[in-house]
């Protein structure tokens, strides 16, 4: 972990790793999309539209994963005072928010052919919507506080309070939904999901993860550069 502490060292490591990461991402997406569009069978009820699942579900996974990454980075920032931890958390948020939005949009598209409505308040979509609001709040707090050190401290608290509440929110939304709507709307078949459907899903999940990794590294890189620029400007102002 120490070797990542020096921003310049981190930058050089990131630059070396990125081409490989992009290559892996491309391969995984190619593989996953092939499995999703070609080899996976259409659903007996939903027909071809079930293929949206291969975009929607991994996006939802990543939305959750990225928030967890943000919270972990915030915890590392507090406990170890690692200089890049705050940067990691800050830059992950917009990417996670986009995944979250993608999950919401594809969830809506998936639902339309089945229920004729552009939006249904089922448990998963509702929880995802609240998660999106948590992302928005986190990003907003970084924008709202001008002083960078203070913004970082406050953002850490926001991320950690959020991550603690996510399971509670999910539990309560699931409960609320079961009160009002007995049947689970998005059928995925749970553990008995057929293998031809399962492996493209997992591959797509991995593909999204590597995509996040690539985008995250690029984002951290720009943030570090922006801070260097700011420090240079401050130093210039003092002379």
């Amino acid at each position, binding site marked *: 972990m120490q070797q990542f502490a020096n921003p310049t060292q981190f930058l050089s490591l990131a630059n070396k790793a990125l081409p490989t990461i992009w290559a892996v991402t491309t391969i995984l997406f190619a593989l996953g999309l092939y499995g999703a569009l070609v080899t996976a069978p259409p659903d007996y009820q939903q027909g071809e539209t079930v293929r949206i699942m291969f975009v929607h579900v991994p996006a939802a996974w990543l939305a959750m994963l990225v928030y967890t990454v943000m919270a972990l980075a915030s915890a590392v920032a507090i406990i170890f005072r690692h200089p890049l931890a705050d940067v990691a958390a800050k830059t992950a948020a917009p990417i996670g928010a986009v995944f979250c939005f993608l999950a919401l949009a594809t969830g809506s598209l998936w639902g339309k052919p089945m229920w004729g409505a552009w939006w249904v308040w089922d448990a998963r979509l509702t929880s995802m919507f609240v998660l999106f609001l948590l992302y928005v709040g986190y990003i907003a707090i970084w924008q*709202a506080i001008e002083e960078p050190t203070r913004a970082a401290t406050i953002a850490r608290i926001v991320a950690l309070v959020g991550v603690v509440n996510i399971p*509670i929110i999910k539990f*309560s939304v699931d409960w609320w939904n079961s009160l009002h709507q007995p049947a689970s709307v998005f059928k995925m078949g749970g553990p008995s999901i057929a293998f031809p459907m399962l492996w493209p899903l997992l591959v797509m999940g991995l593909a999204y993860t590597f995509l996040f990794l690539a985008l995250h590294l690029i984002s951290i890189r720009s943030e570090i550069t922006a801070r260097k620029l700011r420090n240079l400007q401050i130093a210039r102002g003092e002379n």
Partner: protein
Amino acid sequence: MRLLWALLRRDLILAARQGGGVGTALGFFLTVLVLLPIGIGPDQVTLQRLAPGMLWITLLLSVLLSADRIFQQDFEDGSLEVMAMAPASLELVVLTKAFAHWLSTSLPLSLAAPFLGILLNLRTETIWPLALSMVLGSLALSLLASIGASLTLNLRRGGLLISILVLPLYVPVLVFGMSATTGNPEMIMPSLLILSAMALASLVLAPIAAAAALRAYLK
């Protein structure tokens, strides 16, 4: 401890004298209550069905809108800095101030709301479950609001920001607050127990988070 008691007394006196306490919150509550039938239509059946939810949501908004009062003034006039140098921890100071907010604003609102529900044709047998769930839930509401207030201290557009940050945290309270009013008497006790658990959990989480945020602003 004597100093926390002195702080509680002072905050309650200030809430009573300065306004922004129950009176104003109640005024806001009534205003929204007037707008609802105008927006939804005066049909008694519809209003009755929507009443518990509308009352809960109005309670959430009222607590949130009065939350920036918790720390703002003390921060602006320098009192908060002096409080940070007291023999008691800042966490206990936060807890006391959030508790004062509950006593002066959220609690009175939770007691009044179910009875104001008559304006929305609330079913009589729902009044007591609603009152109990609101009293318990509103403690969590004030505590969670104090987290939001501390995170957005002195920020422009802080009010909007508090809402974005805190309303997601209110979802569980709303869900279980509402589940006590479904009309199924078996649901009442479990819902109230869960609301108490949430209030207790907030009692621990809120002071830790809020004190950490306040320290960042006091630097």
